């Protein structure tokens, strides 16, 4: 009897230690990654990174063309994604979510949410690059939009379902039409949540590399023309990191640090906003 108890205690102790160790290993690995990112990235980070365009190996330069390209494509992608995602999420929450068709849409949206991004790149290549015989920033923006839309749809549906039914009834009782109630009352009261969905989508696409490789391609010059190839931060990092030049690699680390910081801060802002809404 006593032995059995000892054995159970021992097993329990071993388990607690194992779980603690797992946490230490996991956090250790992630801290190592962040540490080398900061260590290697900070060295290459100065004003020139933001003001000068991509250098030839061995000369001075920065990443301004890539940064601006990323912002342009992500901004356009978010415009597409917000329009389609908010409308689709609204349909799921307010109109057809319980119909068989609604279930199919929700299921496929969830699949799309974690579909490999490189396949979205291939799809957009077939859709927009091959027929028009050329890589373009539009194609890149559309590829990113396909990745952000499911996230916006999902958060929109979730947040609209949280809005009080009494709000809808009150609007209807005043004689407003259903679409008026949704647009002027429900969307308004869910505003912070909708912004959070947008931010989460934005954070997801701003670091995406794979879908841009064969849609927007990359561009060593400064360009804001959406119908031509455009540089982006992730693809430039990819190209520079795999190069044999030390100064390109330094820029790649600086770029990686920039992206990581940007993504982390967008996520933190989104989270803070979400918490505000829940409290309100």
């Amino acid at each position, binding site marked *: 009897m006593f032995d059995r108890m000892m054995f159970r205690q021992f097993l329990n102790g071993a388990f607690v230690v194992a779980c603690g160790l797992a946490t230490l290993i996991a956090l250790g690995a992630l801290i190592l990654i962040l540490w080398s990112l900061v260590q290697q990235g900070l060295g290459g980070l100065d004003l020139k990174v933001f003001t000068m365009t991509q250098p030839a190996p061995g000369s001075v330069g920065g990443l301004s063309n890539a940064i601006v390209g990323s912002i342009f494509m992500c901004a356009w992608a978010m415009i597409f994604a917000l329009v389609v995602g908010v409308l689709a999420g609204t349909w799921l929450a307010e109109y057809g979510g319980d119909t068989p068709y609604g279930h199919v849409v929700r299921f496929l949206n969830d699949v799309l949410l*974690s579909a490999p991004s490189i396949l979205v790149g291939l799809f957009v290549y077939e859709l927009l690059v091959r027929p028009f015989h050329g890589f373009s920033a539009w194609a890149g923006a559309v590829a990113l939009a396909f990745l952000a839309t499911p996230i916006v749809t999902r958060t929109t549906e979730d947040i609209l379902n949280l809005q009080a039914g009494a709000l809808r009834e009150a609007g209807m009782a005043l004689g407003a039409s259903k679409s008026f109630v949704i647009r002027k009352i429900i969307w308004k009261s869910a505003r912070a949540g909708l912004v959070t969905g947008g931010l989460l989508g934005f954070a997801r696409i701003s670091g995406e590399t794979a879908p841009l490789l064969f849609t927007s391609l990359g561009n060593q010059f400064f360009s804001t023309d959406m119908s031509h190839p455009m540089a982006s931060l992730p693809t430039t990092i990819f190209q520079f*990191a795999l190069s044999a030049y030390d100064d390109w690699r330094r820029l790649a680390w600086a770029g990686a640090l920039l992206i990581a910081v940007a993504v982390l801060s967008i996520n933190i802002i989104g989270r803070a906003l979400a918490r505000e809404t829940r409290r309100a």
Partner: protein
Amino acid sequence: MGDMLFQAACFAAATLLMAALAGVVISLAIGGWPAFAKFGLGFLTSSEWNPVTEVYGAAGPIVGTLVTSFVSLAIALPLAIGVSVFLVEFCPRQIARPVAIAVELLAGIPSIVYGMWGLFVLAPWFAEHVQLPLIMNAEPGSWQDKIFSGVPNGANIFTASLILAIMILPYMAAVFRELFLTVPPQVREAAYGLGCTPFEVIRSIIIPYVRRGMVGVVMLGLGRALGETMAVTFIIGNSHAFPDSAFASGSTIASTIANEFTEATGEMHTAALIALGLVLFLITFSVLAVARALLSSQKY
């Protein structure tokens, strides 16, 4: 009238989402058709991938994808369960919250960052401190020699799996934690009341309670690992040969597409890469479909 228009717009947006997924399948099927038509089943079973002679067999990348994904899952799964159990059950609340938030934030770090770390930090370290000693100490012809053979540069199937594991770990740990938190406190307290140790509560009460959801999360993690491109492309070594040892360089479907697509030499090369994409889609789609079906039956 405006009412109808608005509803129609919402409906159209929802349908567009479906059309997008259908479009992915159709465009991949059309684009990859020439390769399937020419090589038939050999496309899946042959491991000869040669753009010069225009012969394409994708067994190497397909096996590479499956091996790296499952190895990374085998590494990440116990760690993820350990982390989430620790955070939910054993950790003081004041520490658990910040750590949980940190883990969730890390799940959002772009994969290219993990890839760069793998290439510049992990690979050289691994080559010098693990791979070389192992190769040196293995007797020629012994089983160790076979398993550890490969170019000692740290870019191989095993390090790629390691990077993948580090990548999917925070994601899986975050969702596991959410799952464990859904277990009603009464169930837990009842078990403690019977005199169970924490380990027994977790093993016999909590894990069975969320079992379906856990399988769903595992499948989601697997789906991520299967489709992950950038982290792997940096470090897998990019060879199309059939991987013959743990430290052999290899390739995955995603890394092959990322590396070769813009430089494809001819129509057939492009078609073969798109056909590879279709194979990847079918694999991930089935995994994700199972995951979602399991998770939606367990609301968390």
